[in-house]
């Protein structure tokens, strides 16, 4: 495996606030990489620099061999992007939204095939603003796949979704990885990172404070003598919820 995203000593400040304080890491080709951290840790800034939406003050950001700072347009053509708030122009149908983004990337796609991939083919003719939150997140992923990206950036993809929609999205992300696309996601849901990510980096106050596979991080914590003050349950409330309401995706 080789690195598809390389970040070296990246720094970014907004006025007095040092949002990113010289971070370095690699993302390997084909993995699902999670950038974790509380709100304001610098995750979104880091991702937006990698997406070519922001300029770093210093340091390197290389995606698929392209220096994002120097050639943002070339880098943008290689990556897929889902921003934290996925919003699209109004009065476009789901299908037209995919076509719009294909046009933005200068590629031709089969919009219906892409919508089918994210399980939205029966919503193709519906205005995107009428879609539910989960549907819009999936449409957002469809638009992020129009250019067959080498790396897919997902910024808090499951925030605000119900448990069914979250699980549905996880399956979708796993499927995308199966097809060879590297996935770089940010989240502050630890359960999500634990089940989805091959490796995670934990970020706080603009710095990366830990980076490893989730299991290794947990093992290391236990090795330091950590014990949970509560009894390990065989199931939790979410399991109850899903048992009662089913895994079936809810839309309306």
């Amino acid at each position, binding site marked *: 495996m080789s690195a598809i995203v390389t970040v070296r000593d990246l720094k970014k400040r907004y006025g007095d606030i040092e949002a990113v304080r010289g971070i370095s890491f690699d993302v390997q080709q084909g993995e699902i990489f999670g950038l974790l951290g509380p709100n304001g840790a610098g995750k979104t800034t880091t991702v937006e620099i990698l997406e070519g939406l922001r300029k770093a003050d210093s340091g390197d950001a290389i995606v698929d061999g392209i220096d994002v700072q120097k050639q943002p*347009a070339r880098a943008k053509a290689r990556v897929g992007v889902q*921003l*934290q*708030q*996925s919003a699209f122009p109004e*009065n*476009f149908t789901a299908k*037209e939204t995919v076509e*719009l983004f294909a046009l933005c990337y200068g590629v031709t796609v089969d919009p219906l095939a892409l919508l089918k991939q994210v399980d939205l083919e029966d919503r193709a003719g519906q205005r995107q603003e009428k879609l539910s939150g989960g549907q819009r997140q999936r449409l957002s992923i469809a638009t992020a796949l129009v250019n067959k990206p080498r790396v897919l950036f997902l910024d808090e993809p499951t925030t605000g979704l119900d448990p069914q929609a979250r699980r549905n999205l996880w399956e979708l992300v796993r499927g995308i990885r199966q097809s060879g696309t590297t996935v770089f996601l940010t989240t502050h849901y630890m359960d999500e990172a634990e089940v989805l990510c091959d490796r995670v980096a934990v970020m706080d106050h603009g710095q990366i404070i830990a980076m490893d596979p989730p299991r290794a991080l947990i093992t290391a914590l236990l090795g330091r003598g950590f014990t949970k003050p509560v009894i390990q349950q065989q199931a939790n409330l979410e399991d109850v919820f899903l048992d009662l309401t089913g895994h079936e995706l809810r839309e309306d």
Partner: protein
Amino acid sequence: MRTLRLTLMYFRAYLRDRTAIFFSLVVPLMLLLIFGSLNLGAFGQVTVAIDDQADTAASQQFVAALQKIDTLSTKKESTDAALPRLKRTELDMLLVIPKDFAIAPTRAGQPVPTLTIFGNASRPQQVSVGESIVNEVVTRLSFAVNQAAPVVSVKEEEVQGVRLRYVDFLVPGILGVNVMQLAVFSVAFALVADKRRGVLRRIMATPLRPATFLVSQVVTRLIMATLQVLIMIGVAVFLFDVHPLGGILPLLLVCLLGSVLFLTIGFALAGWAETENQVPAIAQLITLPQFFFSGVFFSKEAAPALIRPLTDLLPLTYLNDALREISVQGATLWDVRMQLLGLVVWTAIGLALAVRFFRFDRF
């Protein structure tokens, strides 16, 4: 090609937006229909009540002569009835023909019948026009009686603009104001919403060049402006019998130049505003003074003299002046070059503001 397809996509979306269509087409048409059908047609007319107290052949001849004059809208009415109407400014003037009225030769020193005119002080222009017409008629009748040839003969030449109906005056102003409203509001509202919701940011995460996106937005609005202008001119021609003397194409071209100008202001506003709530306040601040001081519904001369030097420099004043001269006076684009220059200067200012405030790297 990419720009064209992007424009068509956005135009299709625009046509689906009922609110936008309402404000782009329905509201302008309502303005035109309401103001066009208001009976402000007496704009170039003087309404005169005539109290013929003599009621003789001579006085009837005099009244008949006055009634033949198009500029006067006459009505026989007693002084008692007419004076209150004059006070309510329903009349411009009241002409009282005395009992001793006669059209007869007079000798020097002999008293002559005296016509009395009550003028509406709030309509001095109309009153002075009415007075001079009455004087003119009196003079002509005197000549006829004295059997003397006039010392000076006046040949009447009809001048375009003199018999201007209100709707002829109105249509260019309505075109101008709607071009302004469409450009400022359609861009500002749509793009502030797209900015705040992160739509622009998402588009900027693609390799699409900002210029391509901007052109698609501008051209979409220019197509809408063209539609709007053509529909309004169509209604003006077929419903109100307005005939733009300088031709429809020059009107359209000037409207499009005006659209570009106000689009730059719309983009500057969209770039500056953080939320949609800020848009109407600032947009009204920009457009409302021009609504009233730039000669839309009434002459720009109505602006207070103190601020006239400023109101003459407003972008909409240049636009309306150019449109009105083309429509009413049959001016060519070359004739209105100074107004067009004014529009170009404002466009340059607007463009500088748009570039300053509408920053893709900040979205």
